[in-house]
């Protein structure tokens, strides 16, 4: 249990534990960008390791794209530094940085064929044509577009365009690849498939990837580490599991998937555990936390829908936190069902259950009186 809370507190990026004084591959130091007094990016610090697939997640206007553009050299920082492989590249123009970007709308050159689009980066390096041809062929084969080389972008499907953009960004063997919403323009099915291809490709090539996205699912499935961004600042940095299971505050908890948040009042407290009343003081719960909390504090208790069990009878285990309510709404998705239960205080609680048994009659139906229960360590204590 204790190991778990330590994880929730892991704020510092995991620089290789054996020798932590080794410099990270990418170091962003107090980076800021102001537009007419508006701080789009506000004093960002970040270290990224070589070969990592890192995601920056945030809503629109949170500054994630500005941060990415500063890394690419397309935007000049107001202050701060960017170090790549120990070198200060803050002042380098975009065309000199060993960093390439895959743009959100792909930004394929409409007047050039697939081949010429992909070759463009190499041509600017004055590489012999025979070598360019070879490398273009190789990378187009890698993204399975070998037969499309003579086509122009307007004759390609969304998925094909995405792969051309990826090939074009990878052909110069960049030290760092930036991906701006790489999957946003694809339909759902293609997105899932492309996700895995992207991860596979990243592992094969060993290139460091930074993905910017507003889609938490995309970030979670792609990245090994995620930074959640809000109003120009990082709110939390961690692995997908850390961020999902141990969100630092309401914003992160809410941003990542569905969650139920109860307002609670702390009535007792020791080193790692608090006791609090919730649901209009009718019920009490115990929860683990490493945050400094005093008796009388108002906190949020967050529980993920899939951590809650739903039953018609009161569970016998007294260690469980329980609540009572009426089934307000119910949705059957085949593999799982979602119940919306109205508790006695009127709060709607969302519960998600796996449909493990094949049965036509649901265990719980509309307007049934039910008990909700979850384990103590499923409760997340949120201060803000």
């Amino acid at each position, binding site marked *: 249990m204790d190991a778990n809370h330590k994880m929730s507190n892991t704020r510092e990026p995991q620089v290789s534990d054996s020798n932590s004084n080794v410099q990270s591959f990418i170091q962003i130091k107090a980076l800021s960008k102001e537009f007419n007094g508006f701080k789009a990016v506000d004093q960002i610090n970040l270290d990224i390791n070589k070969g990592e697939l890192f995601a920056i997640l945030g809503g629109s206007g949170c500054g994630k794209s500005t941060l990415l553009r500063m890394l690419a050299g397309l935007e000049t920082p107001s202050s701060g530094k960017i170090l790549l492989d120990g070198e200060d590249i803050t002042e380098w123009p975009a*065309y000199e940085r060993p960093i390439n970007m895959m*743009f959100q709308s792909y930004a394929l*050159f409409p007047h050039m064929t697939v081949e010429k689009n992909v070759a463009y980066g190499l041509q600017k*390096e004055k590489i012999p044509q025979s070598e360019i041809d070879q490398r273009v062929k190789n990378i187009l084969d890698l993204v399975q577009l070998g037969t499309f080389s003579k086509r122009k972008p307007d*004759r390609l499907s969304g998925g094909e365009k995405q792969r051309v953009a990826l090939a*074009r960004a990878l052909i110069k063997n960049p030290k760092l690849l930036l991906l701006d919403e790489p999957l946003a323009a694809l339909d759902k099915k293609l997105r899932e498939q492309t996700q895995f291809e992207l991860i596979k490709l990243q592992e094969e090539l060993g290139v460091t990837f930074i993905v910017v996205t507003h889609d938490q699912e995309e970030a979670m499935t792609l990245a090994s580490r995620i930074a959640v961004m809000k109003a120009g600042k990082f709110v939390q940095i961690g692995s997908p599991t850390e961020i999902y299971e141990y969100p630092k505050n309401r914003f992160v908890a809410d941003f990542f998937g569905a969650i139920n948040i109860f307002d609670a009042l702390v009535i007792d407290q020791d080193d790692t555990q608090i006791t609090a009343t919730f649901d209009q003081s009718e019920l009490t719960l115990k929860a683990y936390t490493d945050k400094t909390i005093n008796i009388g504090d108002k906190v949020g208790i967050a529980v993920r829908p899939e951590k809650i069990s739903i039953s018609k009878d009161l569970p016998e285990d007294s260690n469980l936190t329980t609540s009572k309510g009426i089934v307000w709404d119910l949705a059957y998705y085949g593999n799982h069902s979602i119940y919306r239960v109205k508790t006695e205080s009127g709060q709607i609680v969302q519960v998600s259950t796996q449909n493990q048994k094949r049965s036509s009659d649901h265990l719980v139906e509309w307007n049934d009186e039910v008990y909700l229960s979850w384990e103590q360590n499923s409760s997340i204590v949120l201060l803000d």
Partner: protein
Amino acid sequence: MAESMTNHQQAFGDLLWRRIVIVLPYLWLILFFLVPFAIVFKISFSDPIVAQPPFTPLFDQSQSFLNWFQGSLNNYLFLLEDNLYWVSYLRSIKVAFISTICCLLLGYPMAYYIAQSAPTKRNVLLMLIILPFWTSFLLRVYAWMGILSTNGIINSVFLWIGVIDEPIQMLYTNFAVYLGIVYTYLPFMILPLYANLERLDLNLHDAAADLGGKPLQVFWDITLPVSLPGVIAGSLLVFIPAMGEFVIPALLGGLDSLMIGRTLYDEFFVNRDWPLASAVASILLLILVLPMVLFQRNQAKSAEETS
């Protein structure tokens, strides 16, 4: 049953309207372009006489076909023999070409700047481009005469400052003709270019820079090729009217700035040789239409290649 009938009738009505909408522009072109041109073309094969109308009827029963055919080509053969016409055509092409290049060099950065401006500023700038059209074209050319003449504004100011001792001859020179044409036709270059550049995806610039393109390379590799349709449209809109321009060389140009428009005017109104003038006009049209047809065929071909 009755309902399907009315549906059917309505569909028929829609189709009819669609046809009418398509046919109308064609009708307009046939009536006001093709028919007049056919008349001009017909006149170009006859001989001038002092009469009303001042040309012979095209078909003379008394001649054999061969004689008639040779006789009717007289005007065109005459155009080939007399240097005057060749010189006028070539001068017109040269003036139109240089003016088009000047308009492009001036208009491109202006169009680009307008396209990149904030919407409110953009509207003001576009307004400034269009505003001169609200005054008479002739009046604006006369204004240039006032500015350029030996005792005009420029010379007066220069003399007063002491940059020059005696006035520079600007009016009635080739320089004045170029200035007049570029000034007049610049908006025709800027507007189609603006329409094109306004839709330009700036991400393309970022992408090219990101892949190693330096600013000037990005312009040559990306901006210019992508805006090529705008460049061509603007150039045609300047080149074609500049080619047949009559007023500007007549008012601002000297004796040596003879262009085909002036020659055409002289043939019609001074010499009253309508058939020869018609031949001149027919050749002018050929010179203008031929490159356009070739260009369009080329466009169609490249469009086919991509598909």
